């Protein structure tokens, strides 16, 4: 009996060797991508959560234009466009043969519907400002759509490439939150809440078909579990790995490839500019003089990240170096606090959402601010609480969050935004920027805007979030940087 058992196991071994041999011949066509946060729903036109776009952008939904891995605007569902000489009319030529996942044709009517829906008064679009200045969307014929503007908008083509501006079908728009129907190379297959979202290849895709047959986004909130899942091969890739301290371990392991790229995520110590004592610019300047950015980057992110001194990514050509405005100077900071009427400091709270950069960064910043007498009570909050208490109700003193939207300096002009900041000088610059198309002039204006918010010390600007991509070394085609919120799987494939 024992003898026959061992013979059986030997033949089983042989068989499995054969099978793995055949697997080598044809690369795998499935992937499991880990993500730390679960999207609240899957309609990118109706929510601000980055996780929605990460799952859906380019994979499920497409817009007229699209942002590629380098952050450039490339044609999407519009194969070309013409801009009138006055810059007020954009005529989009749509691609032929594009179908939604439910079989409906994509036509100019869908363009009109999608944009008007996003702009409507009752729209739940989180980035309605993207569509400011659009006066009408006309259907010229089934394959041509015309957008008319009230003023030239230099960024229109870029804006239309956002996840919030994707094309949806009138028949399925209402149910996209639970059952998204788009035009992308993947279609929605299933969502096990709290665990995973699965996508299948769309066989009827109009463009280059995806190399993968199946893709799964697996939600792993715990950094330690994420490390274990990667090491054991349960998960094949993380677009942005949540445990920076584990990166050296992956870098040393030939099974994995680690790519540390850039994101549009300005990680900032958001400050409630209307709440005393933070309404006093001297208090905010004292905080700015106290921040030791490199200590936060090293301590919280294990060295991954670039210090910033304004709300703008350092790799952007329009970035201005404002590191000299508020250098770390504790004596100056204490003097400013004393001038503001707090010679002995004061007590305040800091609400920290779950990501590592916030929870760990918050402890370090609290320790730094203690050096000038500001005693922060640390209040950890979940994302839902953060969105409600901090972002919506503005019930906070300080918080730490990474603003991962691209070109988002305009939020400093929003009066109802949670910073509660208002500056006429800033608004004037933004108004000029709005009607400026010349790149050099735009860069100058953006520089002025950066300088204003830095001088006003609106928030504590800490660091630009890095994109810590970790993947199985046999996978290629993932984005190195994150110029927009996306985990684009359209070009991802296994090499063996």
């Amino acid at each position, binding site marked *: 009996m024992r003898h026959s058992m061992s013979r059986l196991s030997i033949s089983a071994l042989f068989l499995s060797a054969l099978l793995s041999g055949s697997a080598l011949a044809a690369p795998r066509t499935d992937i499991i991508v880990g993500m730390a946060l679960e999207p609240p729903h899957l309609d990118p036109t109706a929510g601000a959560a980055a996780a929605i776009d990460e799952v859906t952008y380019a994979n499920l939904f497409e817009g007229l234009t699209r942002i590629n891995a380098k952050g450039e605007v490339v044609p999407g569902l519009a194969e070309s466009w013409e801009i009138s000489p006055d810059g007020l009319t954009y005529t989009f030529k749509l691609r032929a043969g594009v179908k939604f996942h439910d079989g409906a044709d994509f036509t100019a009517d869908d363009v009109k519907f999608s944009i008007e829906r996003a702009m409507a008064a009752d729209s739940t679009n989180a980035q309605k400002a993207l569509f400011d200045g659009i006066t009408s969307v006309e259907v010229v014929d089934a394959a041509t759509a015309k957008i008319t503007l009230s003023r030239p908008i230099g960024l229109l083509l870029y804006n239309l490439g956002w996840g919030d501006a994707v094309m949806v079908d009138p028949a399925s728009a209402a149910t996209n939150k639970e059952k998204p129907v788009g035009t992308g190379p993947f279609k929605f297959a299933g969502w096990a809440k709290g665990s995973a979202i699965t996508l299948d290849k769309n066989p009827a895709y109009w463009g280059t078909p995806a190399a993968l047959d199946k893709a799964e986004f697996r939600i792993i909130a715990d*950094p*330690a579990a994420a*490390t274990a899942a990667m090491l054991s091969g349960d998960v094949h890739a993380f677009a942005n790995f949540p*445990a920076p*301290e*584990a990166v*050296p*371990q992956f870098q040393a392991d030939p099974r994995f490839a680690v790519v540390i790229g850039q994101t549009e995520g300005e990680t900032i110590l958001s400050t409630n500019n209307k709440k005393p004592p933070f309404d006093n610019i001297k208090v905010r300047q004292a905080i700015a003089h106290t921040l030791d950015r490199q*200590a936060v980057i*090293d*301590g919280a992110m294990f060295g991954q990240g670039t210090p910033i001194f304004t709300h703008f990514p350092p790799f952007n050509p329009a970035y201005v170096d404002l590191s000299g405005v508020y250098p770390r100077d504790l004596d100056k900071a204490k003097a400013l606090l004393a001038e503001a009427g707090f010679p002995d400091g004061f007590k305040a709270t800091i609400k920290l959402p779950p990501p590592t950069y916030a929870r*760990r960064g918050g*402890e*370090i910043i*609290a*320790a*730094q601010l*203690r050096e000038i007498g500001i005693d922060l009570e*640390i*209040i*950890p909050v979940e994302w839902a609480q953060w969105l409600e208490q901090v972002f919506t109700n503005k019930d906070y003193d300080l918080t730490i969050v990474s603003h991962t939207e691209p070109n988002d300096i305009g939020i400093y002009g929003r009066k109802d935004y949670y910073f509660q900041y208002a500056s006429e000088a800033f608004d004037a610059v933004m108004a000029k920027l709005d009607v400026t198309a010349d790149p050099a002039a735009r860069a100058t204006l953006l520089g002025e805007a950066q300088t204003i918010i830095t001088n006003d010390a609106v928030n504590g600007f800490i660091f630009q979030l890095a994109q810590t991509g970790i993947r199985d070394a046999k996978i290629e085609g993932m984005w190195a940087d994150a110029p927009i919120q996306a985990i684009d799987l359209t070009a991802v494939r296994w090499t063996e």
Partner: protein
Amino acid sequence: MAMLDPAREAAPDPGVWRRALANRSFLIGLILSIAILLAGALSFFWTPYGISGVNVAARLQAPSAAHWFGTDHFGRDILSMIMVGARNSIAVALVAVGIGMLAGVPLGLWAAARGGWLDAVVMRGNDVVFAFPALLSAVMITAVFGPGAVNAIIAIGIFNVPVFARVARAGAMALWPRDYILAARAAGKGKGRITREHILPNIMHLLIVQGTIQFSLGILAEAGLSYLGLGAQPPAPSWGRMLAEAQTMMALGPHTALFPGLAIIIAVLGFNLMGDGLRDVLDPKLKAAR
């Protein structure tokens, strides 16, 4: 035995300390417990380093002469954090046991003295609380009322109430039929007075043993809650949270998990052994039965 004078039954046995120290579990438990208590007490006056400062340059240093237990991911001295963390653990466990005793013992004594429907109501109420796994319910309480050391104390304390109610009731029920209690009743003492003067002193040893064991469970529960982020909040150090934070640092510095883990083990083991030993010493019948 049945006619023993209550005063004599309650009086401290002069041999109890000698017998206790001869009991190996008690002795080991006592030494470990004292070590933890001393570490916590010492931290009020002195720690090797301050624990509020962050020194990123010195992070994740292995144990050395300068930092006996090494440093954590913020460069804080782990020995100092464990000492202050001991304070936190002891305080939470102590107050939680206090809540359990102050509420549970009178309830149990009252139920035993009155009997009948009142006894049934109180004890079934206890059963209801008992039916929920204690730690799970503590998680629920802190999730509803918010994380923090105070809510952790309350959550752990609530689940100590039925434990002490049961011990007190069982002890009291065994005493009520005793002849000296009957004598006291015949002398006209009321139930309340008998409970105070005769029952309580004679079940004290049971309560002390149970208190020691609940104390060690309290330390464990506090560590569990703060591991989940529901206990003491940063920057106040807590063993459980140190362990949680060390979890992803294991590859870089195993010592960050080792020492808080050891501290929890020593504290829980120490108080448990001490309770076990005390029971053997104070309650010889139980020992014989085992």
